[in-house]
C-alpha cells in the first residue's frame, strides 16, 4: 500500500451519497434499513453490526485524498498554537477541546515521548465515512477527496467517532452543537480570511512557529512499526526541518554554553528534510532519550 498513490476509483457508483462518496454495502444497508423498518435487511444489518469486523469486511474502496497533514513530532514545541488556530478559524473561539488537530504534552516524560501529535490521517479506508449512517461523513470530490463531515447532515450519533481506528480518535465531538467534526484541511473556515482546503492554506500550518506541520500530496506510509495503524509512527511523523544554522550566543543550536558538553538538541541521526520517505524511527531507535542522564 505504501507508495501506491494512484487515485483510481474502484468503488461502486454512489447511491444518493453525492459529493463523490462511494457508498459501501453496509452504508446502503443501514440507509435502507431506516426505510424498511423491521424488514429482513434491517435484521441483516443488525447482525452485521454485532460483529466487530463488520465495518472492515464490508468497506468500500474510496478515492484517496490528494492532501495529507504531516507533522514533525521531534521538533514540535508543544505550544498548541496549531490547536488554537484550528478552533479559531473553524469555530471563532479558541479551544483545546474543539481543535481538529490534537497535541498533548506529557512534560514529565522523556523526549520524544513528552509530546504526542494526533492529526486526521485522511485514511485511504475511511471508516468514519464508511460507517456514517447519514452520509454526513463523506469523501469530498470537489475538495481533493478530503474526508469531511457535513455538519448539516450529522445527527450526532458519534458512529464516526467510534469507528475511527486511531487512538485517540481523530474525529472530534462538539458537545455544544452535539455534532461530530474532523479535520477538513480548512475547507470550511468561516473565521479565516484565506481560502483553505487542499489548494489553499491551513491555519495550523501557518501558526506553527517550528515548521513542524506541513501538507503533502503523497499519501504517507500507512503502517506503523507494529503493523497496526493506530499510532502515527509511520509516514505522518517526519523530519520537516532544514539544517540548523549555528547560533551566536551561549544558547541555541550549535552553541555550547559554558560547562555543557552533552546537549544534543534535536539530534536526529538520520535527519533529512521533508521529502525523504523514511518514517520516524521506532522507539528503540529514538536518539535523544539516551542522551539525557539517568534520573
Amino acid at each position, binding site marked *: 500500500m505504501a507508495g501506491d498513490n494512484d487515485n483510481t476509483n474502484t468503488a461502486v457508483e454512489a447511491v444518493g451519497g453525492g459529493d463523490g462518496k462511494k457508498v459501501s454495502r453496509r452504508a446502503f444497508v443501514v440507509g435502507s434499513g431506516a426505510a424498511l423498518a423491521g424488514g429482513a435487511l434491517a435484521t441483516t444489518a443488525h447482525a452485521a453490526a454485532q460483529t466487530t469486523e463488520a465495518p472492515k469486511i464490508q468497506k468500500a474502496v474510496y478515492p484517496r485524498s490528494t492532501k495529507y497533514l504531516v507533522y514533525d513530532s521531534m521538533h514540535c514545541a508543544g505550544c498548541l498554537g496549531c490547536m488554537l488556530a484550528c478552533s479559531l478559524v473553524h469555530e471563532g473561539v479558541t479551544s483545546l477541546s474543539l481543535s481538529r488537530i490534537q497535541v498533548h504534552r506529557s512534560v514529565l516524560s522523556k523526549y520524544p515521548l513528552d509530546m504526542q501529535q494526533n492529526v486526521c490521517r485522511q485514511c485511504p479506508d475511511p471508516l468514519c465515512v464508511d460507517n456514517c449512517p447519514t452520509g454526513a461523513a463523506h469523501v469530498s470530490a470537489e475538495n481533493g477527496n478530503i474526508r469531511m463531515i457535513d455538519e448539516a447532515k450529522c445527527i450526532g450519533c458519534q458512529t464516526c467517532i467510534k469507528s475511527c481506528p486511531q487512538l*485517540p480518535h481523530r474525529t472530534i465531538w462538539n458537545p455544544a452543537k452535539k455534532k461530530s467534526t474532523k479535520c477538513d484541511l480548512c475547507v470550511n473556515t468561516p473565521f*479565516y480570511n484565506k481560502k483553505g482546503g487542499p489548494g489553499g492554506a491551513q491555519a495550523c500550518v501557518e501558526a506553527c512557529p517550528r515548521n513542524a506541520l506541513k501538507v503533502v500530496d503523497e499519501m504517507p506510509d500507512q503502517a506503523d512499526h507494529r503493523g497496526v495503524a493506530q499510532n502515527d509512527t509511520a509516514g505522518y511523523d517526519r523530519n520537516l526541518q532544514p539544517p540548523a544554522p549555528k547560533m551566536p550566543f551561549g544558547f541555541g543550536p550549535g552553541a555550547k554554553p559554558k560547562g555543557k558538553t552533552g546537549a544534543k*538538541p534535536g539530534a536526529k541521526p538520520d535527519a533529512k528534510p521533508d521529502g525523504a520517505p523514511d518514517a520516524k524511527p521506532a522507539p528503540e531507535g529514538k536518539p535523544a532519550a539516551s542522551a539525557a542522564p539517568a534520573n
Partner: protein
Amino acid sequence: MGTPGFGGKLLVVNLTTKEIIRLDSQEYEKYGGGHGTATALFWEFCVKPGDWDLQDAFDPHNMVSLTVGAMAGTGTPASARTSVSGMSPQCYPIQWFCHSNFGGMFSTMLKMAGWDGVAVIGRAESPVYINIVDDKVTIEDAKSLWGLTTWECQEEIWKRTGVRFGQEWWKLDGGYSLQRPQIVTMGAAGENMTRVASLVHGGGSGAGQGGFGGVFGSKNLKAVAVMGTGSIKIADPKGLKDAREWWDKTWPRGGGFGGFGFGSPGEVTSCCVGCGIPRFCHNRTRVHSKDSDDCAESTWYTLEDRQVPTEVNQRGTDICQQHSINAMETCFMGPMTFDTSHNPSFPIQPKIPAYSALGWYMKKMYDMGVIGPGTKFDTSPLPMEEYGSRNFMEIYGYAIANRVGIGNLLAEGTARFCEKLGRTDDFSTLCRLTMWGFMDHWSMPGVEWAYGNLFDSRDINNHDMSLGRKNGITCEQFVNIMAKRTPPTEDPFWFDYSWEGEQAYKTGIYSEHKAQWVAWHQHYWNYYKESVGFCDWGYSQLYNQAHKEGFGHTPEIEPKYLNAVTGRNHTFEDGLEIGRRAWNLKRAIFVLQGRDKKMEKFTGYYYKPGASYCGYAKELTVYDGSKWEWQNCNELYFTVEGVEKFKDHFYKVEGWNVDNGYPTRKTLEDLDLKPVADTLQSKGKLG
C-alpha cells in the same frame, strides 16, 4: 459571558472557612487582568477590612493569587504568563506586596475552565489542594501529596484522574479533552516555608522571585490543579489571525530583543502555549528530558573557579525544580563574570560574578572563615570539602528546602542570611543586593531597571530595556527610533544616559526626561506584561534591527492583538493608563505597608564606582549637550543628590507628594480610585 478574551469569573478560596467565592471578573477589568486584577483583589480582601498589619506574608490573612489576562489561551505569541501576586516573604526588610509569573499551559487551561484567576486566603487545617474542573471547584485532601516533589505531586494528581493520557479522550461534565490537568505546586522548600521557595508548573516553568511557594506552604496548600474543556470567545477571530500574520511578516524574528534569534529550525525547544518567538526558554531534551528551564540550567550551579560537569549542572536544575527552590536567589554566580581588576578598591577581585547570589555568598563566607566547622555558624550538613561535586550540590539544595543545619539560615534568603551572620554591610559590598533584599540583576548602567527596583518591591526583571549599542545605526538615529516607539511623549532624551555634570540633571539620568521614561515603563509592564500576560522576552520591543526602519513591534502590536481579542477599541495609551491605575493602587498598598520617600534609597554600592561593572549592555546613548554618542558607561554610578532630585521628578510625574512619596487624592480620584484615597486619608497617609 463577559468581555471576549476573558473567562468571566474570578475564584476566591478561603482555606480557613472552606468558602468558595465566585466573582464577576468584568468588574475588575479596569485593572487590566492578571497582576492588576490581583492587586485589586488584594486591596478588597486584605487591605480594605483593615484587620491586620500587612507585615507577615505567612499570615493566613495574606492572599496569593494566580491570575491571567485577556491574551492567555488565545494563541497570541508570547502571552501565556500566569501572574502570581501577594505579599512576599522574600522581600526585605518589609514583606512587600509583590509579584512573579510563570509560563506553560496553566493560564490557558484556567481560561478554558472559565476562570481569569484563583486567589487563596486563609490556612487549611491540614494539607489540601484546590481542584478546578471547568466550573466545579473542590478543596481536596493532600496529605498523601505532602512531602512529594513538584514532579511527583503532578504525576500523582494526574494518576488520580484515572485517565490514560495520550490514548483516550477524557470525558468530563463540560466536555471532552485529551489534555491533562495543569498544575502549579511546590516541593519541600514551600512546605517548609522557606523564603526562597518557588511555584513550579510542569517540568520547569516556575515563579521563583517572591518566595510564593512558601506562601502556599503557610496555607497548607500543596497545589492548584485546573482542567478546562471550554472555549474562549474571540471578538474578531479574523482580525486576530490577521494580526498574527502581520506580525510575522512585519517583524522578522531574531531582529529585535524578543526572540534573540534563539531557537532556530532544528532545535528542540518547548514553548508556552501559543508562543511564536520562540526563545528556547525550555528544552525538550536536556535535564532528564523534563521540560527543563534553560536559564536555571545555565546559571544555578555554575561556579567561579571550576568547571562543573554537564550532568551535574543539569541535575542542579532538577534539584531546584523538584524541591521548588528559587534558582535565581540561591544560585552560585550566574552565567558570566566581569573584570574588576582595574579598580583595586572594588571589594570583589579580580572578577565579579553576574549574580552575587546565595550560593556564591555562602562559599565566600566559608572561605573567609565566617561560617564553617568551629565557627558560630557550622556549615553542616554541607560537605564543603566536596564543593563543586554533585553530592555537594544535592545536599545544598536538600538542606535549604528542608531547613536542615545551615540550610535553615540559607532558607531565609540572602538578605536575612547576611543579617543572621551580623553582616548587613555586605548588602553593599559582597552581596550587591539591589533593593528590597533581591540580588542585582543587570540593573546598571541601564538606570531605568535600577529605578524600577527602587520604586517597586523586587528586581523588576525587565529585560526589554537592554539598550546597548546597535550596529549599523548612529546613536542619534537609534534614540529617535526609540522615541517614536514610546508614545505619546516621543522624547529622545528619555534615552540619555549622561551621568556626570549638569547634563545628567538636564537630560540625563537625574532628569525629568528619565523620570518620565521610568514611569512609562512601570505603567507599560504593569499592564501589558504583568496584567495582560505578555512575556518579558517578547515585549516590549522598541527596536528591531531587521525591520526596514528599525522599528520594534511596540507600540503597534499590543493594541492590535488586544482589540482583536476583546473587541475594544483601546489605544496603546489607554493601556498605559490602565497600567498607571494598577501601579497607583499598588503604591497605596506599599504606603500602607510602610513605604515612604525616606525608604527609597539605593543600596550603598549604587553610589560608588563599580555599580555598573557587571552591566550587560554597557555602551549606551549619551547626549553631551550638542550631539549623541555611544559611550561606555562602565563607570556610571549614582550620586545621592542626583537620585534625590530624580525622585522629586518621578513623584511629580506620578502625581505623588514629593515630600513623602504618597499618592495624592487628585491622582487617585483621576484614576477612579477614590475609595483608595479615602483609606489612605483615614490612615494619615494621603499625599
